[in-house]
């Protein structure tokens, strides 16, 4: 506080040095992980690439869910704990709409169109649910101590799980995606059509989302609200509407993830949202929470790590997959809470 300019300058250069060292260490760790994976890829390529593609498939879904966390966290610094369960409800609804109502189980032109219609329906439904939750529960608590909205989110996640339990039953239900497990093979590695579909839906969605946030008026309002709500309000931005819109965007992404989940993985469980929500949250933190590109990068990384571990490439095996991902979460939180792409922030007083 009573520093001279010279002292402040020295502190700053020291801090810059430390930042470089820390990010260097993080990059080195990532590099070691990648080298290990490359070594495995060379040692047993077919098994590795199978797991890798599976990971890309899961990673796309994690990225879509992680975007919901990161959008909401970016704008009101709330960990929307119920987001994973919102995804679960979306997957249950997707199975109901696509398989039960539309009856689409085989690949045809009409089938693909109906799946797209289902995608839109589920995205709108999940977005509306998220906006309703914001309006009823979170908006009143925006100025409360931080514990209050977090506990509310936990309560909401219980309510969603109850919804899943009522609509999906206490067991697991398996649905037939339109492509089943058919695919084509390139050089001995089987690529399933479902993975192709997941990627070809995810990438346009990500592009549209980036365009909305970066280029449109509404996106500008979102970024302004994230920086300073009061200043944004003084500039004539409807803060409430902007925050509701952000929740809607996040919900729509979770809805899309739900449809893709049913089409590619194909099973729905009432308690799937909890685990997947945590995976996606880990992904968001891994990339740097609050950053859209970070959520996508983190989603793919977590998806690949999990699949590679599931396939037995890592020395742990499938039963420890959850532990591996949560250990990554804990290590990140402790040593690099700002993530790979994020910048360290000091706490606001």
């Amino acid at each position, binding site marked *: 506080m009573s520093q001279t300019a010279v002292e402040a300058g020295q502190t700053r250069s020291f801090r810059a040095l430390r930042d470089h060292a820390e990010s260097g260490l993080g990059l080195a760790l990532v590099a070691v992980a990648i080298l290990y994976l490359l070594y495995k890829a060379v040692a047993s390529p077919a098994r590795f690439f199978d797991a890798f593609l599976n990971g890309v498939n899961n990673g796309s879904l994690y990225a879509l869910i992680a975007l919901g966390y990161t959008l909401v966290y970016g704008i009101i610094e709330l960990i929307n704990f119920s987001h994973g369960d919102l995804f679960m409800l979306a997957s249950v609804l997707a199975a109901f709409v696509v398989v039960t109502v539309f009856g689409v189980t085989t690949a045809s032109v009409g089938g693909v169109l109906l799946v797209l219609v289902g995608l839109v329906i589920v995205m709108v439904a999940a977005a509306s649910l998220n906006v309703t939750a914001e309006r009823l*529960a979170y908006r009143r608590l925006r100025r409360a101590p*931080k514990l209050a909205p977090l506990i509310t989110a936990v309560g909401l996640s*219980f309510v969603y799980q109850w919804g899943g339990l009522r609509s999906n039953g206490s067991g697991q239900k398996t649905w037939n995606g339109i492509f089943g497990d058919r695919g084509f093979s390139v050089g001995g590695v089987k690529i399933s059509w479902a993975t192709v579909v997941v990627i070809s839906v995810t990438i346009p969605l990500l592009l549209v989302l980036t365009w909305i946030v970066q280029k449109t008026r509404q996106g500008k309002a979102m970024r302004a609200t994230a920086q300073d709500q009061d200043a944004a309000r003084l500039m004539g931005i409807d803060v409430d509407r902007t925050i509701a819109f952000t929740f809607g965007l996040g919900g729509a992404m979770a809805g899309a993830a739900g449809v893709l989940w049913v089409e590619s993985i194909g099973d729905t469980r009432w308690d799937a949202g909890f685990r997947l929500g945590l995976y996606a949250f880990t992904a968001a933190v891994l990339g740097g929470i609050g950053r859209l590109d970070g959520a996508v990068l983190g989603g793919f990384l977590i998806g690949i790590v999990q699949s590679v571990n599931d396939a037995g490439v890592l020395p742990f095996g499938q039963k420890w997959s959850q532990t591996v991902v949560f250990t990554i979460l804990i290590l990140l939180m402790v040593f690099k809470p700002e993530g790979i792409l994020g910048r360290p922030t000091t706490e606001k007083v």
Partner: protein
Amino acid sequence: MASVTSATPAPGTTSRNRLAGKGWPIGFGIAVLLVFSLFEWILPNMSGALPDFFERWLPLTVVNQCLIWAIMAIGLNIVVGYAGLLDLGYVAFWAIGGYTAGWFMSGFFTQVKVNVFGHPAVGQASGFHINFWFVLVIAAAHCALWGVLIGAPTLRLKSDYLALVTLGFGEIIPEFFKNADDLDLPWAHHFDLSHGTRGITPIDAIPTGVFHYLSSGVLQIPAELGPFDDALKFLVYSLVAAFAIFVSLRIREGRLGRAWLAIREDELAASMMGVPLMRTKLAAYAVGAAIGGIGGVCYTSAVGGVAAEDFAFSSSIILLAMVVLGGMGNVWGVLTGALVLQWINGNGLKELGNTITSVTGHDINFPSYNFLIFGAILILMMLFRREGLLPETRTRQVLREPERGELESVGADLEGEPV
């Protein structure tokens, strides 16, 4: 804040002082004795509707379960209510305490044969058989150690990140126990630490020690409490709960407790006043974990076994709902919240559903609404009565106090609640 409170004692301060003072053990003891005599002497000697009513609505096993959950809720209250650190993985300490009991009070480790005042079941000579009362101490120490180990690297995180990390631990530790039936350790291959999903069972009985020799015609006290001595077990769990309440209340009044409250209310201001943040938070974690471990031992002894399936995320949240419903920071509120919610969870909801079904003829499966009810409790309490049903005066003032910056910006926007 503290100076304001002491200068003008708010209404409610007196009642808290009365409860926190020396008077409460007498009231608690009378309540326990009333319940005990009801179930031990009055009900078995009656006939007619009343014993049936209690058998349906409030059997003694449910009362015992309520008490055990109350012990753990009081432990969680120290972390969440006193120190303001949101812990979403408290079930981890429950699991560690439960498995400590499983290891030291059963014939699980067939490699060894240790008996310290233990009461092994027939045909279970091998394994650790340590006296229940000693295991309580061991589990408390074991859990406190784990509380410090988990807390030390994570407690410097912000509140919401901390919640997620504790949640991660709450998932990892039960999963470890689930998978730990086939560990490849450097010194032992295929080492079984937990029996996996089958769990460790049976657990040794609770010994009564010298009280066995005091038993008379009115009250027969066996040397160890078998599966049907629920009334005596009730006394044991009441004693443990009283210990947890005692610890909570005494620490709350002392230097450490005041430091916890200061951190809860404003971490930055507390550190400026010279409160060592890390050490104080770690103490909260350790004490909370120790009480959770004691509760875990009681739970294991009550159900006669320990299995990884018991430790689900929903248990952490139900415990949190107990703390929130009763009133964060107020031991009596938490105790009430825990007793009521566990009764709803265990028996109340089921019987209510059965009654409505038999009266109206509609088949209502009330227990399937469990999640809805607990979720709604959390949401509605946060929206409308953030301080809980039996709030601590101090908590109410803090939770209702608008922040300074927001008071200033109120002129720009008057939406939401009037401040």
